[in-house]
């Protein structure tokens, strides 16, 4: 069969999500952010909430998230996304509100906002992209950096005596009464992407059903910061990151 006979609109099984626009993404080649953006765009499209969704962009690599997904966005100061999301959701309860944050934003400067927004049980979704490093600023140590992991500011590896232990913020948040759904996902294989999409959908539905705060953590790679090829970074993540940050639901009520 000729290839041109296969390539017809009625045979299409997968394409770029409708809500993702044609702006070229500024992310490094192989960055997990792109896949997570695609999932968010797909889930919002499937729920038919395109006109009712407000995303809060963070400071970090995803600071330009508002350029890529065709919904309403708000830009927050560093770490303050859950506070802004709280305000927007309380003023517009019919809107679907989510924050999109990295580990330097959510787990470092924004720890207080994150924990208190979750503890208050705000009906928002927090998308947390954990790549164990500050990607945008050049690969410095983050609170989530693994023990012994080499970064620009700990060139001999993270020393727990000097720098403390990696922060498992999802486990912290799962203990709070305000959260209804806390899960840890990954997007390194096609199967993981499908699973992650289901988790994301559940989180968004929880927020519209007024069940409380949902946090979806994506264990992801930063191949530029880790100084590896995208494929090697995925393998490194499976080997090292999953040991400290095991995938699965931490809380689902």
């Amino acid at each position, binding site marked *: 069969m000729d290839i041109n006979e*296969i390539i017809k609109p009625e045979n*299409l099984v997968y394409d770029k*999500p409708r809500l993702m626009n044609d702006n070229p*993404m500024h992310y490094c080649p192989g960055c997990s952010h792109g896949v997570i953006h695609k999932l968010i765009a797909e889930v919002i499209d499937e729920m038919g909430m395109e006109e009712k969704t407000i995303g809060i962009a963070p400071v970090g690599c995803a600071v330009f998230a508002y350029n890529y997904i065709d919904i309403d966005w708000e830009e927050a100061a560093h770490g303050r996304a859950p506070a802004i999301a709280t305000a927007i959701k309380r003023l517009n309860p019919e809107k679907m509100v989510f924050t999109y944050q990295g580990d330097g934003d959510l787990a470092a400067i924004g720890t207080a906002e994150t924990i208190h927004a979750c503890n208050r049980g705000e009906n928002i979704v927090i998308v947390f992209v954990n790549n164990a490093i500050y990607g945008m600023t050049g690969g410095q140590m983050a609170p989530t950096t693994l023990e012994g992991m080499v970064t620009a500011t700990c060139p001999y590896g993270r020393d727990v005596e000097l720098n403390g232990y990696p922060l498992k913020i999802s486990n912290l948040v799962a203990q709070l009464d305000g959260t209804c759904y806390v899960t840890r996902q990954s997007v390194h294989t096609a199967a993981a992407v499908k699973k992650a999409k289901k988790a994301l959908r559940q989180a968004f539905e929880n927020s519209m059903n007024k069940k409380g705060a949902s946090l979806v953590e994506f264990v992801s790679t930063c191949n530029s910061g880790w100084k590896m090829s995208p494929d090697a970074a995925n393998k490194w993540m499976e080997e090292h990151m999953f040991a400290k940050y095991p995938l699965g639901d931490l809380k689902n009520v």
Partner: protein
Amino acid sequence: MAKIKGAVVVNEERCKGCELCVVACPSDVLALNGKDVNNKGYHFVYMKNPDNCIGCASCGYVCPDGCIAVYKVKL
């Protein structure tokens, strides 16, 4: 058994040549173009073995830049 054939269309200008789709493909269809580059200077992906494609869309799911469209027919 019904035979399934697939095809992949790559948005070559959007592709950054990260090779994640090449690794994700179960039937060794995709490869990076070793010679040509797009306007950004990246080697983009192309169908090296188009006959092997089963239209599973694994490449599409893992593509961070959404440059892959997958088509599938049952023969």
